[in-house]
């Protein structure tokens, strides 16, 4: 099982802040391909968007980052704090 978080515009477009997926993925890329099958918004934002930011367990990650059961994976747009 993987915990997934969405922030800012991603959260709004997907209509959810978090979810748990009861499946295993070798890495973030596999998870993204799985989520992209849900429809156009998911594909555009997570798969085709070069600006998507990824964190695994609070560390910046990329599509090659491995994920294991219980990991927290977050997707969000470029940050704009400060």
């Amino acid at each position: 099982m993987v915990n997934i978080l969405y922030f800012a515009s991603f959260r709004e477009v997907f209509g959810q802040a978090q979810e748990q997926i009861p499946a295993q993925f070798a890495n973030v890329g596999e998870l993204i391909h799985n989520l992209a099958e849900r429809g156009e918004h998911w594909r555009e934002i997570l798969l085709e968007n070069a600006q998507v930011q990824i964190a695994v367990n609070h560390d910046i990650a990329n599509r090659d980052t491995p994920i294991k059961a219980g990991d927290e994976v977050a997707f969000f747009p470029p940050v704009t704090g400060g």
Partner: protein
Amino acid sequence: MNNPFVRVQIEDFDLSTEVNWLRENHTDVGAVVAFVGTVRDINEGDDVQQLELEHYPGMTEKALENIRQEAHKRWHLESSLIIHRIGKMQPKDQIVLVAVASRHRDNAFEASHYIMDYLKTNAPFWKKEWTPEGERWVDARLSDEQAMQRWLA
């Protein structure tokens, strides 16, 4: 694991109180540089009526502490502090404070600038603003990415 040097909070902060706290236990301080980021009432040509800041609890604090510790590795600093507000804010409100205390001014100027540049690109905060045109998420600025890159040179 409350880290008094990294605070993410809804409440406003008082600049004097924080700077005095920062230098109070460090006698060999000759310089303090404090950066305060505030809500501009104009962005991209539109009036900003309200701002809301969202963050990623847990990761935010970790990212800010990493940036702070990296600054302490690069420069000889006596102490440093990052406070970042979240939630709804109005024009002119304070958003962020970065304060650095050191013996000599160059270190304090450079380290505070470095912390702000990294915070802008590496700390998970997102701004939404309300204008007469409606609400919108603020776009990341290329200039912020470039500002961060210069420290890699």
